[in-house]
């Protein structure tokens, strides 16, 4: 028999207590993992950014529009290989809960800037030809059962009125990080309507997407773009796509901080529950530890026994919790509008963090019982009533 066998036998000694502890740890780790996944989903936009794309938007706030005329000027800046743009359209598709990105774009240039959106050639051509055609991300097409040729009626809010689009293309995401929930249509369609209904709003775009030849030039190209429009009525702010996405995250920074804080609280609770169990267990075994010491077992052996028991419980709870994270995340993803968190997956980092948590908690929870057991004198331990 090895010491390991003794550890396992000791764990099985208190089936109810240890089962409850494992359960408690598993539940807490599951929530820890889910919370981290929500935080990761928040940052998904940042992760999906390409380092050769810049976003140029209105300096004050991206909710203000920029003139269409800026496009030609930006194109002429050295280092720029392409300029396209988009307008956030918003609106309501059937129900307000059906949230996903709906944007007006320049059909000839937009998809060049986003090679991670994969579209079949003939679909793309069909989309470009028709004025009220639209491209849908695969996930949205599947969620609403929309096929090529279907009509999408949208009730506009930012741009009031009833709008109709025909699905002419579906794009697939190139990899896991790519957003597959966008709906894109012709900016000309929007502009024509604005010329009729609200002329003051025509000729305006939301933000420019600037592709640059060399990613290391990002900062200097950004500065050049902004310098062009300084002191004009619509000043611009240009930055890498990652920085742009990051600014969204930062705006709700407090919420993310709060979620991270809650993650720590959860870890704290796991620790308390396990420490509680280990303290109780160790207290009941004082006499046994004294006997082992009498036989000649050392401090090191005792540490192995106690920490081993603690780790066995915490790792079992950790593995159980981990296995619960995945179905829970899938369940949540199925119930929130897919456009809200386009990427909602458990990342390897989360798995690593959860496992590390289980290990660290297993070790820390054993600290006090170990200290007690090793510092106690044999004779006092023998005197203890079990």
């Amino acid at each position, binding site marked *: 028999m090895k010491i390991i066998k003794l550890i396992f036998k000791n764990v099985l000694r208190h089936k109810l207590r240890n089962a409850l502890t494992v359960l408690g740890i598993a539940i807490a780790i599951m929530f820890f993992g889910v919370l981290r996944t929500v935080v990761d989903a928040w940052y998904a936009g940042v992760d999906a950014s390409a380092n050769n794309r810049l976003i140029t938007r209105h300096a004050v706030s991206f909710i203000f529009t920029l003139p269409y005329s800026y496009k030609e000027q930006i194109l002429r800046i050295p280092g720029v290989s392409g300029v396209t743009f988009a307008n956030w359209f918003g609106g309501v598709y059937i129900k307000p809960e059906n949230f996903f990105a709906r944007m007006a774009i320049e059909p000839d240039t937009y998809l060049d800037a986003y090679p991670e959106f994969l579209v079949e050639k003939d679909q793309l051509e069909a989309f470009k030809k028709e004025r009220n055609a639209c491209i849908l991300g695969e996930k949205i097409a599947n969620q609403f059962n929309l096929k090529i040729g279907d009509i999408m009626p949208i009730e506009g809010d930012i741009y009031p009125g009833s709008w109709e689009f025909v699905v002419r293309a579906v794009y697939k995401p190139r990899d896991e990080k790519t957003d597959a929930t966008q709906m894109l249509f012709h900016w000309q369609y929007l502009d024509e309507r604005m010329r009729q209904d609200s002329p003051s709003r025509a000729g305006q775009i939301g933000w420019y997407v600037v592709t640059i030849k060399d990613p290391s030039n990002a900062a200097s190209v950004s500065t050049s773009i902004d310098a062009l429009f300084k002191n004009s009525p619509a000043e611009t702010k240009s930055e890498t796509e990652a920085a742009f996405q990051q600014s969204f995250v930062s705006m709700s920074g407090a919420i993310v901080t709060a*979620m991270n804080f809650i993650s720590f609280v959860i870890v704290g609770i796991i620790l308390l529950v396990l420490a*509680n169990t280990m303290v109780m267990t160790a207290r009941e075994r004082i006499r046994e530890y004294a006997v082992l010491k009498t036989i000649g077992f050392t401090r090191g052996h005792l540490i192995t026994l106690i920490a081993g028991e603690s780790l066995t419980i915490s790792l079992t709870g950790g593995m159980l919790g981990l296995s619960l994270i995945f179905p829970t995340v899938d369940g949540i993803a199925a119930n929130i509008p897919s456009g809200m968190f386009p990427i909602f997956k458990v990342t390897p980092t989360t798995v690593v963090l959860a496992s590390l948590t289980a290990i660290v908690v297993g070790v820390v929870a054993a600290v006090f019982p170990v200290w007690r057991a090793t510092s106690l004198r044999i004779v006092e331990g023998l005197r203890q009533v079990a």
Partner: protein
Amino acid sequence: MAIPFTYTLRSLFTRKLTVALTILGIALVVFVFAAVLMLAYGVEKTLKSTGYTENVIALRKGSENELTSGVDRDLANTLLALPHIAKDPATGRPVATKEVVTIINLLKFSSNDMGNVTVRGVNQEAMLMRPVVKVVDGKMFSEGSHEVIVGRNIQKRFQGAQLGQSIKISGDSWTIVGVFESGGTGFESEIWGDVELVMGSLNRLGAFSSVTMRLQDNNAFEDFKATLETDNRLQTLKVEREQEYYDRQSRFMAIFIRILGLVITIGFSAGAVIGAMITMYAAVANRTVEIGTLRALGFRRRSIMFAFLMESVLLATIGGVMGLVIASGLQFFTISTMNFGTFVELAFNFSLSPEISIYSLLFSLAMGLVGGFLPAARAARLDILSALRAS
């Protein structure tokens, strides 16, 4: 005959470390629970209270808030000519304020990041319609000059927003001549200036963002709303009570905070409950002989169950009070985040209400009951003889 409460109380002291750990676990859960509720309430309070019960706000139909709304001058005048609108007895003019809302960027003190700040173009009537707003430092801006007053929150949290300094709106420079407070409502995160000049800077002399007005008869709101639906000229407008408007601004945030926070809290409260359960099971196991003795003395099963349940509830309540007390300390902190609805930054406080305190304590009570129930039942079911023989 009930087992004396002192038995329950003293039993807790015999296993100090275990009891302390369990209490701490529950305190932690209640802390987060209360904090989440306090934040949601703080969000609501700040935004809701901004709306004055008697004010009615008109926006362009389809716009969720003032920022994206536009109301033509003519349209505004047509609206204010309706008989429903209250009139100032002295001047005969409608009791209303036509305002324009935009945002500018200012540098924060705390993080060296830029933050969006709301700028509201107002006239003197705005002060009348919002009596809670008071200029506390400096003076009110003079109509017709490039002067502004800043809300207390802005003055505190942004660089370049002190009395005497100036800010830029669309390239024009405006001097800060006063600081105003508004009882903690959303206006304190705004900058106010002369409406006509602000519109000029923005190059949108033709349209306001919103019209806020009072009705002759506040109860006739539905009637007023119906009139607009049928009037051809006014079909592009929608009206709602100012309180409802601000409530809507905060609703998404408040719901989001509540749902996320509560789901997670209640979820991981399972951990704390399990901790309590483990502690109570151990207590029962260790006091088996005592229990047998008490039964032999004549105490009934249900008294035993009650005593142990009480112990668990007492544990949990102490934890709950602890968590609540620590949470109440959060009231000294201000969180600033982006309001998801408007993308504008707002500062929120944690606000403790009596309801939140009660909910928190009830929650801890529930944790104590759930955690203690099974162990207490086990204690009650012990057979006297085998209990006495246990060692």
